[in-house]
Each structure stands twice: as structure tokens, then as C-alpha cells.
């Protein structure tokens, strides 16, 4: 009896030891997972509870206000201009930082078979979610994509990217685009033959995506899409941008007041683009009708 008990305790001790050894390895492979194991096994780690609680920029998208074609169009066009995004004719090889897709596809796991058809078809504005635990960063073999410590923006270094496209396979939101060809001939130019903005044009063979306009944010500005939406009459507040970890920010205030959805929440990546859904479904349907008339 005693022997068995001792054996059991020994096994338990070895188990704890094993977990202790596994935690740092897991921490390397997936930051945060070692901590989770530590909680399960009761083992203590230095990192426990030390999860970053700094700034995390986030976007709140008002789905209802964004039902209007002119609002979404203003957002996408502002983004294209600001980042010299090429218009590639082949739909399979397009570059998109922000775009629209039907509500039913965007929130496929959050609708049901009785969701109104018009609601399923309603267009939703999409962009990179700047996840709290981004799988794209985890898989990148060169560190060409990383999370900016000061504000949680998921950045992209197009000079380091080797174009392996592992990040595209890992992103659960289809937010990343690859330059299948040289994008420069497809970049819009002004009357003087210059690109529309100073943002560097890319080369072929690298991945790119929405950066929450990191450069504008650095000088205290707002992302181009947010500014553009606010300038459309009726589009004011369609997109709201700010620090989700600051309880006094606009985004925190809105999320405290209204019901919001994020995409594919069950995967645990922690998306930071929130979608305010209208109180009633007919609002979505009406949006589609308005669009039809326009």
C-alpha cells in the first residue's frame, strides 16, 4: 500500500518536473501556452501573470453604417491611395488590405440556416485583425512579420520577407496578400506620373497586409480608412480606432455599451477588429435594399 503511494507520489513529482521542463519549450514555440500549462499543473513560472498589458490598438466597425456602398468605397479607396495598392486585374492575384465580403461568409460560424438571406448577403468591411496572439507571426521563419510592442500592431517587413507564404496559410482570416507579380505597373499614378502617396511600392514575391496605418499612428494620426469614413456624410463613426486596453478610449467605451462580434473567436487568436451588429436583422436587410437602389 505504502509502496504504491510512494510510487504514485514519485510519478506525480516526475510529472511536475516534466511540466516544469516543458514550460520553457512551449513558451518558445507559442508564447502564452507554457503559462497555460503552468496553470493546469500548478507549476510556477516567472512569466506567470506577466502577460503584456500595454497598449493594443483596435478597430470598431459599425456594420450598419458600413452597409452603405459610399462609406465602404471611401475606406477602400483611401487605403489603396495611402499605400499605393496596385489594382491587379486577375481576381486570383489581387492585393487587398481592406475589402468587403458577405456577412454570411465572414461570420459563417455565427449565423444559422434561418438567418435572413438579405442579412447573409450584407457586405462587411474586412481588414487584418491585428490579433493578440497572431498565428502569422508564430509561423514566419524570418521574423518578417512581428507585433509592435508599443501598440500591438502586426507589422510587415517587406525587405526581409522571403515569400514562403506560410503566414497566408496560418491566417484564419484571409487577410494577407502576396505579390504574385511585380505590382508597380498596376499602381495608380497622378497627373505627374508619380504614385499617389509616399508609401513605398513593393517588389514581386513578398506578402503584405493592413498595418493599421502604423506610420500615421506614429505621428498621432488615425488610419486612412477611419478618416475617410468620417468624411462621408452619414459615415461618421462607421470606424472607430483606439487603444482597447485603455478603459477611457472610444473603442473601450463603445464595446462597454454595445454588443460586438469578432471573427472566428473560437480559434483563440484574439482578433482586435470588433463588429457592431445592428439590434435587429431587418436593418441589415434594409441596408442591402438601399444599396440596390443606389
Amino acid at each position, binding site marked *: 500500500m505504502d509502496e504504491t503511494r510512494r510510487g504514485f507520489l514519485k510519478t506525480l513529482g516526475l510529472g511536475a518536473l516534466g511540466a516544469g521542463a516543458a514550460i520553457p519549450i512551449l513558451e518558445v514555440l507559442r*508564447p502564452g501556452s507554457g503559462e497555460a500549462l503552468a496553470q493546469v499543473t500548478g507549476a510556477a513560472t516567472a512569466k506567470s501573470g506577466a502577460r503584456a498589458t500595454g497598449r493594443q490598438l483596435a478597430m470598431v466597425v459599425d456594420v450598419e453604417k458600413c452597409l452603405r456602398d459610399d462609406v465602404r468605397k471611401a475606406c477602400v479607396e483611401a487605403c489603396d491611395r495611402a499605400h499605393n495598392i496596385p489594382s491587379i486585374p486577375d481576381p486570383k492575384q489581387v492585393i487587398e488590405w481592406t475589402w468587403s*465580403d458577405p456577412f454570411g461568409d465572414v461570420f459563417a460560424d455565427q449565423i444559422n440556416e434561418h438567418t435572413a438571406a438579405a442579412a447573409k448577403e450584407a457586405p462587411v468591411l474586412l481588414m487584418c485583425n491585428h490579433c493578440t496572439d497572431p*498565428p502569422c507571426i508564430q509561423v514566419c521563419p524570418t521574423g518578417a512579420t512581428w507585433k509592435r510592442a508599443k501598440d500591438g500592431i502586426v507589422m510587415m517587413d517587406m525587405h526581409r520577407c522571403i515569400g514562403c507564404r506560410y503566414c497566408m496559410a496560418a491566417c484564419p482570416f484571409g487577410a494577407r496578400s502576396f505579390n504574385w507579380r511585380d505590382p508597380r505597373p498596376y499602381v495608380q499614378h497622378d497627373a505627374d506620373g508619380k504614385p499617389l502617396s509616399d508609401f513605398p511600392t513593393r517588389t514581386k514575391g513578398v506578402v503584405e497586409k493592413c498595418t493599421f496605418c502604423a506610420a500615421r499612428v506614429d505621428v498621432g494620426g488615425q488610419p486612412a480608412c477611419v478618416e475617410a469614413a468620417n468624411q462621408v456624410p452619414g459615415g461618421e463613426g462607421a470606424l472607430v480606432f483606439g487603444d482597447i486596453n485603455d478603459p477611457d478610449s472610444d473603442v473601450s467605451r463603445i464595446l462597454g455599451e454595445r454588443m460586438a462580434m469578432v471573427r472566428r473567436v473560437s480559434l483563440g487568436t484574439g482578433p482586435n477588429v470588433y463588429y457592431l451588429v445592428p439590434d435587429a436583422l431587418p436593418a441589415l436587410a434594409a441596408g442591402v435594399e438601399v444599396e440596390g437602389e443606389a
Partner: protein
Amino acid sequence: MIQNFFRGGRRYWTLMALWVVLIVIGLFAYDRQWHLGLSVTGMSRDVSWGLYIAQFTFMVGVAASAVMVVLPFYLHDYKAFAKTVILGEFLAVSSVIVCMTFVFVDLGQPRRVMNVLLHPQFHSVMFWDFMSLFGYLLLNIVIGSMAIEAERKGTPPPHWVHPLIYLSIPWAVSIHTVTGFLYAGLASRPFWMSAILAPRFLASAFAAGPSLLIVLALGVRRWGGFDIGRQAIRTLGTIVTYAMAVNVFFVLLEVFTALYSGIPHDRQTLTYLYVGMDGRAALTPWMWAGDILAVVSLVGLLVPRIRHQERWLVPLCAGVFASLWIDKGLALVVAGFIPSPLEVVTQYAPTATEIAISVGVYAVGALVLTMLYKLVLNVREKTQLA
């Protein structure tokens, strides 16, 4: 030593010329890709990996399968594999070269490939895959060349090689496990995110690799006068049979969890593969052909009286190899992207350029393999004369 690569008859040089022609065609195609980018392929925003990465995945398996001859010979002193082991190791060398070349041609910015070493990311499975493949290549080059050198001198291989040989056994398992982890760790792709993926990769590898080895060994016996022995062929046939049975079992486990649980995302990809989705079914004929081939070959292999006859063994091995190529070298990678995260079914088909490059990469492997096998034959011939 080097001169052994250049001593050969007309048949050897014809074969070499064929590989060179295919490599040159591949180089022209790659030149096009180099200048125009990966837009010359059939890949897209939705299906961002295609033929190249699928071939890489399949050939990692062939490379790993050398362990199926190394382990019985070195660990269990299974003498019947004495002559087979060098063929297995050299097959591994050429397969790893093929794998690495496929990863290289898949890169959008091939000139920056060294960034993987300059900025290593320990949390990326791809970093570990690079490391394990490169290590495995080195191990097999050293082990293989020491074996051939020992053979030439008529002495046993030096003692310091033994630990490397033992190391190469778990290392072989690791290369395909890590390749499985490339896929199985992605929450975004439910079709790949399965704990059985790495074991399934190993099972299919240990069926496909030895199948190829049997066919190669019989070819070498017929045209090179080098016989690995009846017993070795028989044992390889048994290995293929067991591995294929386990592989089919593992595939059925996947089908069970997907269909019985009925979780839409897991079911959707299987639906696309076997019946098509939204009227799109490019892979469906391949899937059925592959599965029928797999079952027929397995049934044939399971009957010893059939398996032990070489005239049946060769087509059965070809069937196993072809069915596993369809499964892993065609369907698995592409299907992981269908449907897309936004529920879109975007199909993929390789372009002529992509196929030419792939054939060229395989020809590089075939060229290396032909030279290495010729080396074995020439060294054998000399020692037998002496």
C-alpha cells in the same frame, strides 16, 4: 573516387542526357518564373501553396523512408539488407536535395533565402524543418560516403560513423514529423489540424519510399547487374504492405472523425475532394482513382502468394506509390485551402511552367541518384574483380 561517376556505358550516358535535358527545360521555365514572379503558377490568394510544396512534402517522406532499411540492418543486424542499405541512403540523399529545391523554387524572394539563418525564429516550424532536412542531408552524405569508401577498401566503416548511423534513425522520423507539424499546427486549416497527420505522413512515407526502392533495386539488378537479393526484395515488400495497411487505417480514422462528428469545416474539405462543392470538383476524379488504386494494391500485397512474385510486386508497388502521390503530392496541400477562410471555393491547377519546373527539380534528384547508384555499381564491380 570521382572518376567512378564518369565510368559508364551508353545506357548510363543516355539516362544522364535525359535528366540534363529535363533540367535545362526546367531552368528555362524557372527563368520565366524568376522574371515574372510566381504569377506564372496556378496559385492564388486563396490557394497560396500548390504543386511545389506538395512535392516537397511527398519527397520528405521518400527521404525519411531510408530508415526502413537502415534500422533493420544496423539495429537488428538484418544481414539480408547488407546490399540494400546503401541504395536506401543514396535515395535519401537525392530525395532531400529534391525537397530543398522544391522549397527554394516556391519562394517569392529566393535571393533572400539566407534570412532563415540570419534571423532564425525558434517558434516557426519552418525553421526547424530547414534545420532537420539539412541535418538529415549531411548525415546521409557522411554515412553513405563512408560506407562506399569502406566497401572500396574492403574494410568495415570507421567506428565514429556508428553513432551517426544511430542518430540518423530518429532523425529520419523527425524530418517527416516536423513536416507534418508545418500543417498540423495551423488552427486556420481544419483539414490539416489533426494529431494523426504526422503519423499518417510516416506511414505513407514508409509505404511509398520502399515501393520506389523495390522498383529501383529491380532496375539496378536488371540493367546494372547488381542484385540486392531475393530476401531483401521480399522483406521490402512486407514493409510496404504493413506501412500501406497502417496508412489506409489512419486515413479512415480521419474520415471517421470528420464524418461522424459532422463538424462542418472538417466535413467540407472531404466533400470538396470526393464529390465536389459549388459545382467545382477538379480533384474528385484523382481522389477516386487514388483510393481505388490504394485498395487494389493493398489487397494484392496482403496475399503473400501474389506479393512474392516479382511480376506482381512491381505493379503493386507502382500502384501504392501512385496512390500515395495523389494523396500527398496532389490533394493534401491544395485541399487544406478549400474552402477558404471566407468560405470561397477557389480551385487550383498547376500551369505548364509550374509542371516544367517540377519535372526539372525531380530530374535534378534523378541525376544525383543515377550518379550515386553508378558509383555503387562501379565500386562493387572493382571489388569483385579484385
